[in-house]
């Protein structure tokens, strides 16, 4: 059947099951926006292409499905580089379609030409410049296949204008839809393996059965593999304590007795110390990121390592595993469960009561803590805002955060009891992530309440997407923790640069966040004291016809604890000032 490349592109997206595109048109992609009018695919018109990319990511985080962004050439393509890199670092399945100047103009420095494929090569799992209209369906099928299989990631498809422009004979083609077999055959170098090696799995089971101080080190791969249930079954079968990294919050319920919470630079004392003292780390879909390990030569010195990852390159990249298993987390955990059961299951586990006692001792002595204020005593404590937000919102609320202190407090104080409720920028640490990501999550999960927890600095980077949310009636809720500072940087300057503050002050009221939010079509409130917190949250929870923004004026002096200073080992973790004397006492005793 005769068709043009632009129609083929839209049809291919429909065939892939795409329901929503996040994008913004321009010259090179214009011919694709025309057939879009006749398509059932919803298009969310963003105000900046970075927003489109993070929305696609938020959509993918919340739904597990591919997020799709479509933008034009040149500056639009460069605007979406940050989200591509973000998705690459956090293994987010995403497809990005960019317009390109006509084939004949490529290489001539044409208007709005840039080497999109060259620029994005190192921040995508794969990218491709399509040169013929008839290749479009295959390119789209490959993109979705690559983005979602193996270790997920972003794939970019660059489409020159001439092959989609009905006015150009080069856009004429016959429609066809490649079969799965044809797609696989077209990628001779791409064979992701999902099944773990049974010999290694059995070795892992034997290590577990011998370990008296085990810890499961669960990473984002658990969520990517939809393995949260399998993880829980494993932990419960063998009574194994679990830490969940920043990327894995929600993969194991925080209210589960085996959950130790988040490890790493701003993890809690028990999670950090349990990993340090463990005799076995069972790393599932985690990658020994420097923010988790701290100084590497001091990390978990006596632990044997079982490392499960779908990406073979992660095994041994940072820490040499004793048992390395390449495979999809869910399938490997399920096989591991069978292997453990065959070896006697829970009855075969050694006595770990001493370890359990040690863990509960740490938990009791060093819980997350902060000093709260009475009403009217000054600016609100950010941790308090998060505790109240958590209490006053449904258990399955999706929360997206920016990057900075507020992100760490959210990860610490939000109690995650469901997978896919935490949307954040872990690997790249992209300020400005939360608002567009929350919008994408809400588009994917309109049935859920979605809160963005943002910093005042972050808010100023992508706030314009609240216009998108208002225009498209995507009722997200935003809490700005306004400490008038680039707080995380301020914390480092306070602690490690002798309180010499360099370029971190932002001002509490420039801009006026309430007016700004209102100007963007949102409901808006300002909270300046502790006793106003609950009422504002409850009011926001009741607003569903538009986005709502609450600006909380928070205490700028508040710091995130615990903290493992950069370059230090995890055994040097600093706890909240109120706990430091006790920690010093314990350390002196060598406990």
């Amino acid at each position, binding site marked *: 059947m005769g068709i043009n490349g632009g129609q083929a592109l839209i049809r291919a997206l429909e065939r892939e099951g795409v329901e929503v595109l996040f994008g913004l048109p321009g010259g090179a992609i214009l011919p694709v926006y025309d057939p879009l009018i006749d398509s059932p695919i919803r298009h969310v018109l963003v105000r900046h292409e970075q927003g489109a990319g993070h929305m696609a990511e938020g959509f993918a985080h919340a739904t597990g499905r591919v997020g799709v962004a479509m933008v034009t050439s040149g500056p639009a393509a460069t605007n979406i580089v940050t989200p591509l890199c973000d998705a690459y670092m956090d293994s987010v399945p995403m497809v990005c379609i960019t317009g390109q100047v006509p084939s004949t103009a490529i290489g001539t420095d044409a208007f709005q030409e840039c080497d999109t*494929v060259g620029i994005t090569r190192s921040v995508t799992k*794969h990218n491709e410049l399509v040169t013929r209209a008839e290749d479009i369906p295959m390119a789209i099928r490959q993109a979705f296949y690559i983005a979602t299989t193996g270790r997920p990631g972003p794939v970019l498809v660059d489409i020159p204008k001439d092959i989609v422009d009905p006015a150009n004979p080069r856009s004429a083609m016959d429609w066809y839809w490649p079969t799965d077999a044809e797609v696989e055959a077209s*990628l001779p170098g791409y064979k992701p393996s999902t099944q773990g090696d049974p010999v290694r799995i059995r070795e892992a089971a034997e290590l577990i059965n011998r370990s008296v101080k085990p810890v499961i080190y669960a990473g984002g791969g658990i969520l990517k593999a939809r393995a949260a249930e399998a993880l829980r079954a494993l932990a419960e079968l063998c009574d194994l304590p679990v830490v969940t990294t920043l990327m894995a919050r929600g993969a194991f319920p925080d209210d589960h007795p085996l959950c130790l919470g988040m490890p790493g630079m701003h993890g809690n004392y028990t999670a950090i110390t349990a990993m340090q003292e463990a005799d076995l780390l069972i790393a599932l879909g985690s990658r020994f990121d420097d923010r988790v390990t701290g100084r590497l030569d001091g990390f978990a010195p006596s632990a044997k390592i079982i490392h499960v990852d779908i990406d*073979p*390159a992660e095994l041994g990249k940072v820490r040499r595993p004793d048992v390395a298993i390449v495979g999809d987390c869910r399938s490997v955990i399920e096989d591991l469960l069978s292997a453990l059961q065959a070896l006697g299951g829970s009855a075969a586990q050694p006595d770990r009561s001493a370890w359990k006692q040690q863990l509960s001792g740490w938990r009791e002595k060093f819980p997350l803590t902060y000093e709260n204020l009475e009403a009217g005593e000054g600016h609100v404590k950010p941790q308090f805002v998060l505790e109240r937000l958590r209490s006053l919102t449904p258990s399955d609320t999706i929360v997206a955060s920016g990057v900075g202190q507020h992100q760490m407090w959210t990860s610490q104080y939000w109690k995650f009891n469901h997978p896919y409720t935490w949307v954040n920028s872990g690997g790249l640490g992209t300020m400005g992530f939360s608002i567009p990501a929350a919008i994408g999550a809400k588009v994917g999960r309109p049935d859920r309440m979605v809160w963005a927890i943002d910093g005042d600095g972050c808010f100023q980077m992508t706030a314009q997407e609240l216009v998108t949310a208002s225009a498209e009636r995507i009722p997200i809720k935003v809490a700005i923790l306004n400490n008038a500072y680039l707080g995380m940087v301020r914390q480092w300057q306070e602690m490690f640069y002798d309180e010499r503050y360099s370029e971190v002050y932002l001002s509490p009221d420039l801009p006026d966040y309430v007016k700004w939010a209102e100007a963007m079509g949102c409901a808006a409130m300002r909270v300046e004291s502790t006793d106003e917190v609950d009422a504002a949250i409850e009011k926001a929870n009741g607003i569903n016809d538009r986005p709502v923004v609450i600006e909380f004026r928070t205490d700028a002096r508040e710091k995130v604890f615990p903290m493992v200073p950069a370059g230090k080992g995890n055994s040097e973790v600093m706890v909240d000032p109120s706990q430091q004397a006790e920690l010093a006492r314990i350390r002196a005793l060598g406990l």
Partner: protein
Amino acid sequence: MHSYHTLVVLVENKPGVLARVAGLFARRGFNIHSLAVAPTEDERISRITIVADTESAPVEQIVKQLDKLINVVRIDELAPRDSVEQELLMASVQASVGERSKVLELCQIFSAKVLDTGTQEMMVRLAGSPAKLDDFEQLLRPLGISAIQRTGRVALPRLDHGSSGASLRSVS
């Protein structure tokens, strides 16, 4: 040259694939000592022979990262003792009429070939092991080299002599 491994990488013969491979080395801080690209018997596939510096990164990590490139079809790793390596050298050397015999003598010893003879210079070619080329280059140098080109090595696995095991380790 310090520690190195030769990687024979079969890639899809498509635009930009060499840039992907080279870009990966640059981005991950792996060093390339030499690189040679050529088509294979199968027109859909090209062969990239990379001599990788394994001091800058463990060879295992280099191979695994390369293997993640969608267009990389197969990687074979050749440890130096398991492979036969060859390289080509061309050089223009100062050789006025009276001095040609010095060049000719070296060519004879090394079985190099004279490709061109000018009034003041001679152009020579030598194919062989990289070490042999190093020696040849060393001895030509005092005569005055005005231009020199080396191709970078290509390699194939050493053949089975009936004694030791397989010489080629397929890693993907």
